[in-house]
Every structure is written in C-alpha cells, then in structure tokens.
C-alpha cells in the first residue's frame, strides 16, 4: 500500500522533522519509489538466513574500567546554542509523556 500524506506526517513527527506542505508530495513519491524498488527483495530466497550472522572479528572487544578526565568540557559548553552557567538550557517541555520514560523511571 503506497504511503499517504498522514503517514508522511506521522514519520516526520517521529523523526522530529518539520516538513512543509510543499515537501510532503515529493517525499511521498520518493518513499514509494524506494519501497517499489524494495519489492524486488521479496522475490529473493532468504529462507533460513540469520539476519545478524555477519562474521565480526572484533566481537567481545571491551575496555578497562579506568577513569580519565576529558579536558574539552569548556570548548563544548562555549559552543552550546543556549548555555546557562554549567548547563545546557532547553525551552519549556510541554506534555510529551510518550517520551519521558527514562526521565521518569529515576
């Protein structure tokens, strides 16, 4: 089923991406184009393939539990779009309960 306008808007919202009225049409056509191409994959025989079976010779790589202090902190805060003292500042958070999960479970 081709992707409709409200589907585009649903995804755009999920991606936190403002799209203008003019952008919607082209985006719709593009996405449907991609998915049309994708239909070819459906003809492939992919039976019994473990999608994550790619060999990986770095499996299990890890680091020691050692602390080091990073000196660049001020360079970051100095470039913060909206710095307030030692903090990054963000505008009013309206009800976004679908997003507060991590914040709330503390």
């Amino acid at each position: 089923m081709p992707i409709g306008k409200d589907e585009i808007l649903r995804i755009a919202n999920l991606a936190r991406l403002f799209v203008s009225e003019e952008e919607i049409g082209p985006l719709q056509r593009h996405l449907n184009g991609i998915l049309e191409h994708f239909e070819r994959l459906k003809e492939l025989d992919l039976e019994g393939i473990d999608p994550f079976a790619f060999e990986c010779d770095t499996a299990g790589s890890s680091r020691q539990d050692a602390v080091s202090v990073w000196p660049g902190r001020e360079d970051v805060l100095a470039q913060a779009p909206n710095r307030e003292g030692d903090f990054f500042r963000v505008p009013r958070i309206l009800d976004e309960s679908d997003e507060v999960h991590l914040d709330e479970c503390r």
Partner: protein
Amino acid sequence: MNAAEMAKAVREAKISAVEIAEGAIGRIRLIDSDVRALLTPLFERALEKAEEIDRKIELKQDPGPLAGVPVIVKDNLCMRGQVTTCGSRMLENWRPPYDASVVRFLEEAGAVILGKANMDEFAMGSSTENSAFFPTANPWDLERVPGGSSGGSAAAVACGYVPLALGSDTGGSIRQPAAFCGVYGLKPTYGLVSRFGLVAFASSLDQVGPFARSVEDLALAMNVLSKPDPADATSSWTTRPDYAAFLGRENLKGMKVGLVSEFEDYPVQSEITEALARVESILREAGAEFVPVSLPTTIEAGLPCYYILAPAEASSNLARYDGVRYGLSAEAESLMDLYMKTRGLGFGPEVKRRILTGTYVLSSGYYDAYYLVAQKARIRISREFRSAFEGADMILMPTTPTLPFRKGEHQDDPIQMYLSDVFTLPVNLAGLPGLSLNAGYSKSGLPVGVQFVGPKWGEGTLLAAAEAVERVLGKPTCAFGGEKA
C-alpha cells in the same frame, strides 16, 4: 612529485615543507575559484605545521613517512578547533573539541592538512550538489559533477592541489568520485581504518580511505591510516601488512581475476566497457588469469538493500542534531518546537528524504518487512562475494555505469542518482575493499574509471594489480595541466 617523493625530498632536506605548502596553496588560489573543492582552507595553520616539520628536519628528527606532504581531508572528519560542517547548515559553525583518529594519524606521520573538502551533506549524495554551501565542479568539465559524496577530496587531488586526500565511502563515496575525477580512490575493508571522529552516516558501512594519483601513494597512505584503534569497537585488531611490500611485482602470474557473468548484460556506457576491456588485456599481459565468477543477486538486491539499511542507520545517527548541545538551534517556544524547527531548517532535502525513509523502515510494523529483510539480503550478498572469492583473488568490474553527468541532471530524480552507486554499494554491504582507478579518458575528455574489488583484507592484491595497470597507462594526470604538487 607524488607524496612518497615529497616526503623523501623533505626528509633529505632537498626541499622545505613550507615551500611545498606554499606551492600547493598557490595552485589552490589559482584554480579553486572555478572548481570549489575546498569548503574551509586552513592555510595559516598549514604553514605553521610545515614550519614545525622543517624545524624537526633541522633538529635531525624524523617527522614521519608523510613529512611535509600536503593533504586535504573531507569535511566530515573532526579536527580539533577547526570548523567541521559535514556540508550541512546544521554544523555550519561547529568546531569539534577533538581530532578524528585518522587526522591524528596523518599529522603524527608529518602530513600537513591544507583544508577541509566539500561534500554532499552528511555524505548523502553522489554529486556533491547536496552540499549546503555550494557544489563542486568536475575538474575535467566544470559543467559536470565531480561525483560524491567525497567530491571535494577527489577534485582536490585531480586538480593537483595535493597528492593525497581523505574521503569516506558508505556506498561508493570514494570510488565513484575517484572515477569521475580520474584519480585513485581506495575504500578499505570495513574495520581496517578507524571511524572514531568520522561523523557517522551509516555506521556499519562507513569507511575512511585515501585518494591519490599514484599507487605508491595509496600504499603509503594505507600504512599510515590502517591502525587498530581502541576508541572504535569495530576497528579490527588483525595485524596490518606493509602495503608497500605488495608493490614492485614484475608480473601478476598466479593471480586469478574474476569477471562477473551477471554484469555482462547490465547497461553500462560503452566507453566504460571499453576501459574494462583495456584493463583486462593489460592484466592478462601481466600474467593474470581471468575466471568467470557469479554474483547472482548482488546487482538486483544491492540497491534496495542499501537504500533501506543506510537510511535506517542514518535516521538514528542524525537524531542527535536537536539544537540542544551544538550546531544549529532554532528560536523556539517549546522543546518539541525546538526539535521540529531546528531539524527542519538544518537538514537539506536529501538528508530529510533519508531520515524519513530510515525512520519509516524501523517504525513499528515495518521493521520485519523492510529492515530485517534487507539485513538478510545483505548477508546473502556477502555470501555471494565470499563464494566468488573462492575462485578469484579479485574482481574487475565497473565503478559506475556512466561517465560524469551534468550538474542538475539528477536533481529532480534522486533514485536515478542512486543508480550511479549500483556497482559500488554492494562492496560496502559486504564490507570488502574496493579500488577505483583511472583507465583512460572518453572522446569528450572525461575520465573513465574501473573498479577492483577484493576479499576481506585483500587491499594488497588490489594495489599490485593497480600498479600493473599504472605501468602501462601511466599515472593519472592533473586537470588544468602541470604535474604539480
């Protein structure tokens, strides 16, 4: 002079690093107003670094294998304190507080970084027209594109600004512009070169690699770039060979080169087919044996597979550009407003297309139907390559189906644009090394490239074969004449 000769001359104090840098800067000033390969020149800094190199020489210290060699790096590689835009409004004024590992490797080896190269926004594109700032022109025909996304780096080497440049390759972004600009471009095996400090597009496909105008320089660059990096968990610990050691073979006896049967009837411009034939006969002459290999579904499956997986990863990698910590940040009433506006304003059309595609294929209800199927197809493609390499040491195939196209030619049809990566992106899906080399010029004077693809860790074979071709066709020449820096 190529990079190797420059470094040698500098180390032997026959020429100063400053002289070389000044020469390069001069040529950039002369030509780049037309080509526009550079996004950010770093001339003052470069001259200071060059002086440091010369001081070391005076003090009889060894500045390293790239002593005084001027290089240009793609603008998605972080350089501490230097604007790194990724060709995007989103990062227009962002100065990374740290160096990419490969940038560190280059400077530790004595290279002098002259500037940051133009690119398609966040490396998404095949023409460098998606740069948020300006397009780069093809040095051989200013009306045409240099390819992309590493178009600036490729053009810089083609124009002879520098003998070496760094690009990144996610679906062909080194090899396709190398072919379009008539230079060498090597996309290493996934995990060979560190990604730490490379601004991510699609993490499981991205690799950093060199552009050069001589095979010797490619090997030299690989010796510097290809190091295990504890800061990149996907960086392999396998010990690297000395890539220079693969060069100087007087013939290719015993080397099996594969030709992909399925590719024969894929529409490719005649001049590219001719170039392939040219290279084939050169390799035969050198003693290589040709064998047919089969990649039954690679060409069919590659494109759709790639254009599901790469956007999926990109949609997540680019979610961090939210206007809170760095980069563009829109005036906003609320947090939601900040997100929507910042990202709506900061990203160009192609980036938006990919973010939305990626978000869609990962969103609930579509993951299994798209992302998972594509992931399976990816496994299948890498298996096809693996069995192909049971009978061959490397594969000879086109880099691109067409010669460099005109600016704007594909702007209203992105999917047409995607097709120019049809031969390169399967190589990323399989995590293999790919080398694009110049194999002559079209009647219209445009460079024609072909591609060598190897098995994992097969870079050495590709370099040896490329050298054999270089012996016959000669080193790629610079656009705008002159065998300059």
